[in-house]
């Protein structure tokens, strides 16, 4: 069907005449065109840079880079987080060690007790400690309570008071011990290994100065009493000094006794919830990668919000320029 049939049949004759008289290219022009040869294709892989292919290619590339970088960052952070997780889980692992290996099995704890708050052997010190450990169930609570009582006795100490209760699924055992100060470290190390250490408090107070002061006062008082006994001038004062000496001796004995025995409060509770399990490396990788992707999405949205109006203006400008060029071409062809 001729295109003219779509317009009007009355132009058929006109069209036939126009077609019949179609200009033919002269021989010289034909020879010029025949002499043309397209450039040889480059050896390297030709990349078609047409916009309609370039835009999706760039979009896919950017998406791949975004996902790839998120994955790499996730993997790297997941790996580096591994050591942190191990460090965080150290106390849990350590607290499950047995009592028999307490000296060598609690490096983290020993750093606190032995190096930091170790009682000085050449000084009189008051040592108070309180620990709170969590065990899994009531059975373990009972066992650990008995262990603590036995250990206190074995170390030469004694139980001041004990409160053991298991109302429902929970339960607690509150124990107060007096442990010889020379063995308190072993006791604390053992108690902290009974379960997960929840809290720990150690208080150290120096009593040496107080004891020395008492000793000096006792010495002075004894000298004074000896002098009064020799002269026999002031029996009232002598009697008062003897009473005072008795009080000072009692205070000194009490101070020395406080420095000999450490007070240790142990609370063993049944844990209502399990200790938080550190996330696996896969979970950390997924989390980190997801965080990076979300961050990238935020940046993309931010960029769109910022650059969107400019992009829109640019597109509108390009469309206007294209329309203006078409109108210009149209006017040019109308004049020609």
């Amino acid at each position, binding site marked *: 069907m*001729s*295109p*003219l049939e*779509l*317009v*009007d049949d*009355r*132009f058929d004759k*006109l*069209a036939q*005449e*126009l*077609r*019949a*008289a*179609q*200009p*033919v*290219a*002269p021989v*010289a*022009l*034909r020879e*010029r*065109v*025949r002499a*043309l*040869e*397209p*450039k040889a*294709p480059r050896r390297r*892989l*030709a990349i*078609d840079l*047409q916009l309609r292919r370039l835009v999706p290619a760039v979009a896919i590339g950017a998406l791949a880079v975004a996902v790839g970088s998120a994955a790499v960052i996730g993997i790297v952070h997941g790996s580096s987080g591994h050591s942190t997780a191990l460090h965080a889980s150290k106390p849990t692992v350590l607290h499950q060690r047995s009592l028999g290996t307490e000296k060598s099995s609690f490096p983290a704890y020993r750093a606190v007790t032995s190096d930091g708050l170790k009682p000085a052997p050449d000084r009189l010190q008051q040592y108070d400690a309180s620990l709170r450990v969590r065990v899994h169930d009531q059975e373990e609570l009972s066992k650990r309570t008995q262990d603590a009582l036995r250990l206190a006795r074995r170390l030469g100490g004694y139980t001041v008071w004990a409160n053991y209760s298991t109302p429902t699924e929970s339960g607690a055992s509150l124990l107060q011990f007096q442990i010889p100060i020379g063995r308190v470290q072993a006791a604390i190390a053992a108690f902290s290994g009974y379960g997960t250490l929840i809290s720990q408090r150690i208080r150290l107070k120096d009593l040496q100065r107080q004891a020395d002061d008492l000793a000096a006062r006792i010495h002075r008082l004894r000298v004074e009493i000896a002098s009064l006994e020799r002269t026999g001038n002031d029996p009232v004062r002598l009697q008062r000094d003897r009473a005072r000496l008795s009080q000072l001796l009692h205070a000194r004995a009490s101070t020395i006794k406080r420095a000999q025995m450490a007070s240790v409060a142990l609370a063993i509770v049944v844990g209502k919830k399990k200790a938080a399990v550190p996330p696996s490396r896969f979970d950390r990788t997924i989390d980190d990668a997801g965080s990076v992707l979300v961050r990238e999405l935020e940046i993309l949205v931010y960029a769109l919000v910022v650059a969107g109006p400019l992009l829109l203006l640019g597109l509108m400008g390009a469309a206007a320029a294209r329309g203006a060029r*078409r109108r210009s*071409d*149209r006017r*040019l*062809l*109308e*004049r*020609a």
Partner: protein
Amino acid sequence: MTRLRRISAVKPGAQEFAEVAERHLDDVHAFLVYLTGDRSVAEELTAETFARACERWRRYDPRRGSARTWLCQLARSTALDHFRAEDRRRRREERYAVGVPEAQEPVFGEELSPALERALSRLSAAEREVLALRVVLDLDSESAGRVLGISTTACSTRLSRALQKLEQEVSAGVAA
């Protein structure tokens, strides 16, 4: 590998270009004759068009249209560049052409009647180009619209008006 094969399949080489140039040379030349209304200019522009086509031959994608349509697009672009350059030159020299000079020898075809020849010369380039594409080269409205950068409807409308005007000019020429 499949992608490379596909590219090589749609990217013709030198031999194909020579065949396409030989096949469509007359069409492109005729289109430019109608567009410019000047044979010598049309010849120069035809040579320029094929030179451009030769340079861009690797970018030609047969899936987006026939080679004839692509060549006509290039020819039109080349002609528009020529018109712009001429326009600027005329402005510089301050001597605008007053209408199209009467043709002393046939421009649009040796076998055309003098009345039709004169009528064609009185049409604008915009009117002649749509006649060339739709009537002389017998392109469908979609291809012609693609060359002209307009819709098929606009192309048909423009063709109808051009034919009407041509008929009027022919009738006026015969009456005179």
